[in-house]
């Protein structure tokens, strides 16, 4: 995985909050993933302009004192493998 990439969510996905699940979900053709709270915090910030550094800074600003870089890297790897995110070309 390229750690300098700018990430985006491909257009076939939709990220939304589901009150019935009390969770953010990622919707795609005929399927969905229920996101953990920390995964949702990361994925909500993947807006087509954010790099790894920008994601970490944004989260650490929102949760002062947290050190999240390794967690973000681990999640981006999983999300990349599943095709939930792609590097912007």
């Amino acid at each position, binding site marked *: 995985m390229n750690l300098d990439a700018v990430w985006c969510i491909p257009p*076939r996905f*939709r990220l939304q909050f589901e009150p019935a699940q009390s969770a953010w979900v990622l919707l795609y*053709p005929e399927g969905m993933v229920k996101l953990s709270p920390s995964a949702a915090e990361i994925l909500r910030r993947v807006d087509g302009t954010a790099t790894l550094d920008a994601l970490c800074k944004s989260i650490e600003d929102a949760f002062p004192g947290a050190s999240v870089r390794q967690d973000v890297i681990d999640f981006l790897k999983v999300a990349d493998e599943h095709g939930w995110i792609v590097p912007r070309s």
Partner: protein
Amino acid sequence: MVGSSLGANAGRPSPPLWLLAELTYRCPLHCVYCSNPMDYASRSRELDTETWLRVLREGRALGAVQLGLSGGEPLLRDDLTAIISEARALGFYSNLITSGVGLTEARIRAFKDAGLDHIQVSFQDSARDLNDYLGRARTFELKKRVARLVKDHGFPMVLNVVLHRMNIDHVDDILDLADDLGADYVELANTQYYGWAYENRDRLLPTQAQVTRAEDAARRFRDKVGGRMRVLFVVPDYFERRPKACMNGWGSVFVTVTPDGTVLPCHAARMLPGLAFPSVTTAGLGEIWYDSDAFNRYRGDAWMREPCRSCPEKVRDFGGCRCQAYLLTGDAANTDPVCDLSPHHARIAEAVGRAHALGSSVRPIVFRDDRNSRTWATHPSMPA
């Protein structure tokens, strides 16, 4: 997926995630493995637009988020754009499941504007002649044009092909066709033997060698294309030793509303005797989901018999499929005989062996059409 493996007394069931709206049983195709009921021709009443919009609102309020717009052929409903608009406004992710017949450029534009999220196009085969034979309609060239239209308008596309003895050796060509048409996902859906497919089982069951070759072909293709296209291989459960987690458990995730408003835990469940399935014309979807006898009958595990009852795997497969248990053992509460712990498991191997011993000497294939449906409704075949 958020599954439910709650025991019968473990409290309120979780909400549904999937609402399958079977808008009509009318269809220009006559596929030999159609999942509509055998007696569909005597169930021609359809809900009106207002009732469908109410069903969507009630489903969404319950918690459903994935919406399947299916049939028959849903494009035969003139109010499809209105239904899609309401679905989008409610926050559903909407999936149009179509043969492609009737999908014009004007309609696809209207669906895009209304907020449709995804289109699944079915093919019967990668070769024109077999495709047109299996659905008994000349649709192959039209389907290719429609698939290109779907991609030109920026929709994600799932290409779905039901696999069986006659086309399972074409998996390489099917995957190349899907790639050529720009599919984002391909579903290689091995036939599930209910209804029309059960009637035609002797003609449709593949051999173990065919299944293995098809799986190898799918694997090679995945390695070749990487993440460009996702290939889903729906396993043929007659060749497994453990049952599928059918519907992720009865009344756990899925709710189906049929054209006339009957509410089912899965689209095949109406075949089961002794269950009174409620209708949206006389009850709300929430009341049906949580309180009806039909939806509670096989929830949890209190209904299970041995070998399921004491089996640690029951939390994973929920005892398999109720319809398959009924069709193959005569009792829906039995273990799905796909499981090799079932005392009826030999019936699966018998069915496979019988199909191949008979070869092409079995009775003619039964196409899904109004005449065959009416004949069946008056003289139904009995389960094995």
